[in-house]
């Protein structure tokens, strides 16, 4: 399979700009907007119990399907549960999945990518396996894994991570392959630097910016995949109020109570948008060559 040539941020020498933070922010407005939105969402998730919420699982059959009002900001669902509380607590699930998958798949992808980037024999074998795995659409791969295990938050994270690892590995490998041919790595070899020291001091720091940008996009797509899995009934168990679960429950009532589906949908979109803006901004800041084009 031929992969599009990837521009790598080899020229990302962190040029110190004068003018401090304000100029920096003016130069990269998307980072500021993205970071602000994401912080707001993170604070919402962390302080969910103190934001006027009630127990998101509390049933109240007499108050079924109340429309959004001063008392129930986002209305109630078909079991009388408070949609506002459920949506706020849902931010916890989404962010947990996004961050965990980004961390796990970056770490695993980095480890495999570093090894395959330096060992020709492992490279041939591992990359053929990754090619095969990448031919399976990620959501289907995650669905297949989830169908075999019990629904739980941990299993969702593991399934999405497995589906993401091939992409991360390929990226790290391509960065390593380019880096190891560069003069400064050669110079390090020539001056007798050990292999692991070269990996740690020369390859890793130069691969990190690309990996960081990729991690933000991984987090965003992991959140979408989690919501889709839950929406299809193969994700987090129904007793956890995740955005995908809330939407799945409201699905059959969409014509009478569309707020149950649309409100968590908007929260999900805004969170993903925040991360994408942050990622775009980071890429622009860390990789001036790509920034000009994308």
């Amino acid at each position, binding site marked *: 399979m*031929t992969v599009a040539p990837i521009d790598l941020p080899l020229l990302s020498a962190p040029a110190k700009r004068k003018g401090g933070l304000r100029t920096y922010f003016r130069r990269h407005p998307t980072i500021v907007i993205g970071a602000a939105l994401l912080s707001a969402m993170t604070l919402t998730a962390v302080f969910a119990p103190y934001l006027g919420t009630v127990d998101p699982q509390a049933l109240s059959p007499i108050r079924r399907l109340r429309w959004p009002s001063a008392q129930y900001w986002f209305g109630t669902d078909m079991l009388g549960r408070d949609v506002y509380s459920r949506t706020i607590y849902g931010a916890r699930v989404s962010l947990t999945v996004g961050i965990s998958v980004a961390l796990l798949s970056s770490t695993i992808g980095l480890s495999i990518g570093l090894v395959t980037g330096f060992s020709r024999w492992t490279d041939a074998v591992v990359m053929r396996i990754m090619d*095969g795995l990448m*031919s399976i659409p990620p959501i289907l791969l995650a669905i297949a894994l989830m169908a*075999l*295990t019990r629904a739980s938050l941990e299993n969702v994270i593991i399934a999405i991570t497995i589906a993401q690892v091939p992409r991360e590995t390929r990226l790290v490998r391509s960065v390593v392959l380019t880096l190891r041919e560069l003069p400064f790595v050669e110079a390090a070899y020539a001056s007798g630097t050990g292999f692991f020291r070269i990996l740690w001091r020369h390859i890793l720091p130069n691969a990190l910016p690309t990996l960081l940008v990729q991690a933000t996009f991984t987090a965003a797509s992991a959140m979408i995949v989690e919501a*889709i899995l839950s929406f*299809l009934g193969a994700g987090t168990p129904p007793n956890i109020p995740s955005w995908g679960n809330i939407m799945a429950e409201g*699905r059959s009532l969409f014509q009478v109570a569309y707020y149950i589906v649309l409100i968590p949908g908007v929260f999900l979109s805004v969170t*993903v948008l925040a991360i994408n803006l942050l990622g775009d901004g980071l890429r622009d800041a860390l990789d001036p060559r790509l920034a000009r084009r994308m």
Partner: protein
Amino acid sequence: MFAYIVRRILATIPVMAIVALFVFSLLHLSPGDPAVIIAGDTATLEDIARIRAKLGLDQPLYIQFVTWVWGLLHGDLGISIFTNLPVSKLIAQRVEPTVTLTISTLIVSVLAAIPMGVLAAWKAGSWIDRVVMVFAVLGFSVPVFVLAYLLIYVFAISTDLLPVQGFVTLSGGLWPFLSHLVMPTLALGMVFAALIARMTRASMLDVLAQDYIRTAQAKGLANDKVLIGHALKNAAVPIVTIIGIAIAGLISGVVVTETVFAIPGLGRLTVDAILRRDYPIIQGIILVFSAAYVLVNLLVDLSYTFLDPRIRY
């Protein structure tokens, strides 16, 4: 050239072999007895024994694998646990709506995205460019099913312009066919179009900076001829590549879109199979979708030589 085509086609065999090996081992990778997991919580011992016999799980592993691959090579994807029908037959019954939706999404998003990307690159920095980039970021951020429900709200609930769900074949009339296809296509095509528009813009920006573009403009060639004849033609390879790669996302999106719009395609089949833990169906669908992905990317690779005569093998 011919040798390259043959080599490229042969190269898909190991990839599909890995997919098949993975799909086979899925059942055995799971912690615990797969028959127990598939049977579910309410199963009796007889149910579990029946499933174990049906899946051949009582055989040694290598015999299971050989039997399974032998069946695959003969187009036998196994028997559905729930319906007792051959999986290949179930898939064949459901393939039409999925293929229709995928093709209409491909056509609509390519036709919308490439002009957007070309315009944005040509007028880089202008308001057109900004609008296209905002569309691209939003397209990435609004998940397919959220967009689908927004569309249903706008076009079916508040205005009643389009049918909420279902699928009508072309033989059921042109308007019923199209009207059922509009919302699923838009919902599914958004991410895809955003990606293609972005790639087109990036690729065009690269090409527009080349000397031969300045030459073409200097000799007084009309803008549209420069943009399409000179620039887009040279920018085509990355665009076609991203279309090939994005097919994986499109396939994932189909499963969700079909669920929202109650379209009786492969996506519905997948979701029903998940809920019933009908594992042979899930395996069959993964194989079919992965084969489709590998095939599309084979075609993309082969198209390079036609798009860009400079590429020789």
